[in-house]
């Protein structure tokens, strides 16, 4: 559905304006509503005043590294019996765990509910496990989480934490056509889940402006296959090139705001081309606090323990267990279809006067409550960067390298025009 169709009155008003037939004030308001994607519409061009981010090496206060748990066919939401225990899987969300958390929880809890349990167990307390536990409680179930770590010490807390629901979520061939529908269902539900958390104390979920900077006109990224690369993922379970990854964002175009090219007069950055878009992200400390608070207020129990064999699920007193163990499922459930894609982030001192995100060359910076998160994502490698790499120790060198690239950008920023 195109956005214009949502506002038939506005289209009518615009036509009347073209005929010179409507009151100016009303038309101004309505046409601003539909024409919002053109930055130059409305008042005179104005360069937004943005505070430069401090990107000197001394500002780097933390490094985090984590492994995205990718499955070629997409997340495992299947079921299996361990003795008389029903296990519903909910793991393997690649780089989309945060983004799909509410929708994926809904699917897993729905399956658990079909045997009418009064209590269930959730194994794992990353973003998938904890969200699943809360969703199950909201459906009326008594929930015990069994986990070796609480969310703050899990891989979820070492993620980037922005709304990227199709980031390394599956490879298109093994996922098949059907996964797109399920992905869309989970994504739309998650979107509503995040919407319900906007504006809560501590800003667990935030929208902010994101700027993509370039020296040459930006070009739409294509994912064409390189004919020189023979074969595909089947051989070793790993994708061999960028074109094998699945992309579904076109399915939710109606939700996600469009990017806008800034006219020179409105461009605060010392580069020729700046595109502004809106991004949504998650502030881990506050988000975790909200979910844990709800979990405990609803009477949830947390039992600290580790598992090393699936048979142990059958020994739990709960006869329905949702398995939300992320990358750990590769070993625990001997699921060798899970492959690692390494990612790492550097964290700069939080700067609340600079609430925006920025991408330039391989550098990506995003201001969050708990710091400005820096990534070095080589553009040429796309989704292939980190594939097969399970080294989970951080390496500051690539982060410092992109901070150096961004330093002159920050030094050259312009104030109000």
């Amino acid at each position, binding site marked *: 559905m195109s956005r214009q169709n949502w506002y038939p009155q506005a289209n009518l008003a615009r036509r009347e304006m073209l005929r010179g037939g409507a009151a100016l004030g009303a038309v101004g308001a309505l046409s601003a509503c539909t024409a919002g994607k053109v930055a130059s519409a409305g008042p005179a061009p104005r360069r937004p005043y943005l505070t430069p981010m401090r990107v000197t090496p001394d500002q780097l206060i933390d490094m985090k590294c984590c492994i995205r748990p990718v499955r070629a066919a997409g997340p495992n939401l*299947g*079921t299996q*019996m361990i003795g*008389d*225990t*029903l296990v*519903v899987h909910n793991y393997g969300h690649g780089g989309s765990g945060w983004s799909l958390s509410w929708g994926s929880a*809904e*699917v897993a*809890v*729905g*399956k*658990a*509910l*079909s*045997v*009418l349990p009064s209590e269930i167990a959730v194994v794992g307390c990353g973003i998938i496990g904890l969200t699943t536990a809360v969703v199950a409680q909201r*459906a*009326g179930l008594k929930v015990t989480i069994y986990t070796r770590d609480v969310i703050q010490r899990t891989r979820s807390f070492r993620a980037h934490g922005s709304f990227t629901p199709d980031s390394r979520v599956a490879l298109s061939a093994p996922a098949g056509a059907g996964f797109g*529908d399920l992905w869309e*269902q989970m994504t*739309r*539900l998650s979107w*509503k*889940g995040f919407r*319900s958390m906007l504006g809560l104390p501590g800003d667990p979920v935030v929208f902010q402006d994101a700027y993509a900077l370039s020296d040459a006109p930006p070009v739409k990224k294509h994912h064409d296959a390189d004919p020189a690369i023979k074969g595909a993922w089947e051989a070793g379970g790993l994708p061999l090139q960028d074109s094998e990854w699945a992309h579904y964002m076109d399915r939710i175009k109606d939700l996600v705001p469009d990017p806008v090219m800034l006219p020179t007069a409105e461009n605060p950055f010392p580069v020729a081309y700046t595109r502004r878009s809106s991004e949504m992200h998650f502030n881990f400390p506050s988000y975790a606090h909200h979910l844990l608070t709800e979990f405990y207020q609803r009477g949830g129990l947390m039992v600290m323990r580790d598992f090393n064999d699936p048979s142990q699920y059958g020994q739990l007193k709960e*006869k*329905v267990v949702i398995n939300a163990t992320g990358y750990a499922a590769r070993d625990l459930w001997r699921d060798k279809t899970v492959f690692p894609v390494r990612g790492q982030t550097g964290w700069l001192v939080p700067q609340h006067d600079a609430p925006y995100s920025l991408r330039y060359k391989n550098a990506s910076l995003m201001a969050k409550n708990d710091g400005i998160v820096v990534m070095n994502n080589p553009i040429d490698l796309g989704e292939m960067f980190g594939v097969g790499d399970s080294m989970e120790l951080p390496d500051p060198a690539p982060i410092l390298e992109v901070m150096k690239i961004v330093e002159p950008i920050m030094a050259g920023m312009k104030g109000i025009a």
Partner: protein
Amino acid sequence: MAGLKWVLAGALTLAAVPVNAGTANGVYTEAQAAEGAAVFAERCAMCHGKQAEGTWEVPALKGKFMANWGRETVAALSDYLARAMPQFAPGTLEPKDNGRLVAYLLKINGHPAGAKPLPEDHAALTAIRIDPLAAAAVK
């Protein structure tokens, strides 16, 4: 005393219409469910979604649906559909379509089809309980 009478009356009612058949035993036919799918596509999918997946606001007719309706009778579900659905025009489902929809809903929630169609007789529907799924049947 009044309480005892009530219990006795309840026992007599149960004896008259024994709740002994559950949906685990195959209480509808595939043909009925297929007809129900067509009714669903026309009358229900616009709100509940093509796959009955629901939205944040509209209930899914799978998953939590079972928690809401499990252990109720098929008659209760059928009556509800007849009374309250579709929400924009309640009471407009043809009785035959209503039965087909119930069959379709049972099917998409994992209850097996059987040789006999769902009865049209209300008392017979009252005798059919919506069973929880067997754990091994959850897909």
